[in-house]
């Protein structure tokens, strides 16, 4: 078997059709994870009773186990729970009506939530305590102080980590093939299965991922430059 460069090109064009699925999984998990992350981070920083140990356990468990196990646990465990509940409550809803991609959304959101919580927490801790005190002193409420003063600064501080998390979720979305969602990785397998040119197909897939990662990094650099405008020195 020889390397077939023309097939890389063919595979590349066929893989393009799977990009939306990969991006959709990434965007959903990052956005939902971000919301989970803010809630968990605030619970941990304000040491909310009862919820605090749960938040710590959640973050520890997710960060201590591979993303693949989360997906498998959700994929096999969620139907059990949903069906048991449905029988008890008399719902007509059954787990079989959850689409495959739904499992990927749920599990990856849970995964990214824990990582986002750590990113956001470290960002919030990086903001000087005096900033919130100054907000109080001019009469802001805690919500106003957090939203107007602390969060913008925390986000700026955690931008590099956030971008790493997004890239991590983009790369993690390749796991979706285990629950038979056709993302770029699964598509590469399908494309190659007819003629066994796996190497060429995966080269094309790698090129696409490389490009997507590069785009995210560029985008982060642009945003970072904008955010840090106030950091510049001098008089002008």
């Amino acid at each position: 078997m020889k390397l077939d460069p023309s097939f890389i090109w063919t595979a590349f064009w066929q893989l393009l059709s799977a990009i939306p699925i990969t991006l959709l999984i990434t965007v959903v998990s990052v956005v939902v994870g971000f919301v989970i992350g803010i809630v968990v981070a605030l619970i941990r920083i304000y040491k909310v009773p009862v919820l605090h140990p749960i938040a710590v356990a959640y973050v520890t468990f997710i960060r201590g186990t591979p993303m693949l196990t989360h997906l498998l646990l959700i994929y096999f465990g969620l139907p059990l729970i949903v069906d048991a509940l449905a029988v008890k409550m008399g719902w007509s809803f059954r787990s079989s009506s959850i689409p495959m991609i739904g499992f990927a959304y749920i599990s990856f959101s849970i995964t990214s939530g824990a990582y986002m919580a750590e990113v956001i927490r470290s960002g919030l801790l990086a903001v000087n305590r005096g900033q919130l005190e100054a907000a109080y002193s001019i009469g802001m409420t805690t919500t106003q102080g957090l939203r107007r003063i602390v969060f913008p600064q925390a986000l700026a501080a955690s931008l590099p980590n956030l971008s790493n998390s997004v890239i991590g979720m983009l790369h993690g979305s390749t796991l979706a093939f285990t629950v038979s969602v056709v993302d770029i990785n699964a598509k590469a397998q399908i494309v190659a299965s007819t003629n066994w040119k796996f190497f060429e197909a995966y080269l094309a897939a790698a090129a696409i991922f490389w490009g997507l990662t590069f785009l995210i990094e560029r985008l982060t650099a642009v945003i970072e430059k904008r955010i840090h405008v106030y950091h510049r020195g001098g008089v002008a």
Partner: protein
Amino acid sequence: MGEPFDFTYILTFIPKLLSTLQITLFIVAGSLLIGMIVGFLIALPRLYQIPIVQTISKVYISFFRGTPVLIQLFLFYYGLPELLKLAHLDVSKTPVLAFVILTYGLHTGAFMSELIRASVMAVDRGQVEAAYAVGMTGYQAFVRIIMPQALAIAIPVFSNLVIALLKDTSLAFTLGVMEMTGKSQTLGTLTQHFIESYIALALIYLVVSFALEKFLKWLENGLLQHEQQDTSVRSTRLTLRKNISYRRIVTEMSTGKGGVDL
């Protein structure tokens, strides 16, 4: 889907899964070794700014950080035998484990080189200059002055890398390696108790990564002892500033593996 939930299966699965823990740890140790060597080789050209080689290093790092490790596994598994065939080397008899360890090794190498580079850059420039001033050669300055300091800075991020690697190895089952994840899938298929076997799997990963973290923390405390002695002597203002800069260094240094791992 499968049999009803039965708690006792988790207990019976744990020892069965533990019997394959050594393969997982073997992959981690092997790829860590390759990763450290590769990482060092990749980092040196960038640190000393050697033209051309430096660019190759950059592309290497960009590729391994820019593509998912799963894709890399498949690339090496399918691609390497074909490439070696061009050089008239037959590797069809090589065990899959070798490909897996090589891939993880090269993958970790990229992150390791970023870590090495960042921690060497974090050592004050004046340290090397002082070493040259007392007549050390470049090699002596690196080994005696830079390396011990860089090592202490690198340990926290290094520990993140090791744990990320441990979690990444769960993907080796896609190539048919019988490590813990592969074993848990087999157990699930055999008994139809999938959820129990994955709970057992998750528990083992949790304990192992927790133990690794504690061990590396202990190592870090040992290596950072000189810093602690320093700070107790210094005035509080200096201590404060030092801590801030240390935190800044560590956050700037995050190799990208600190975020989400597979």
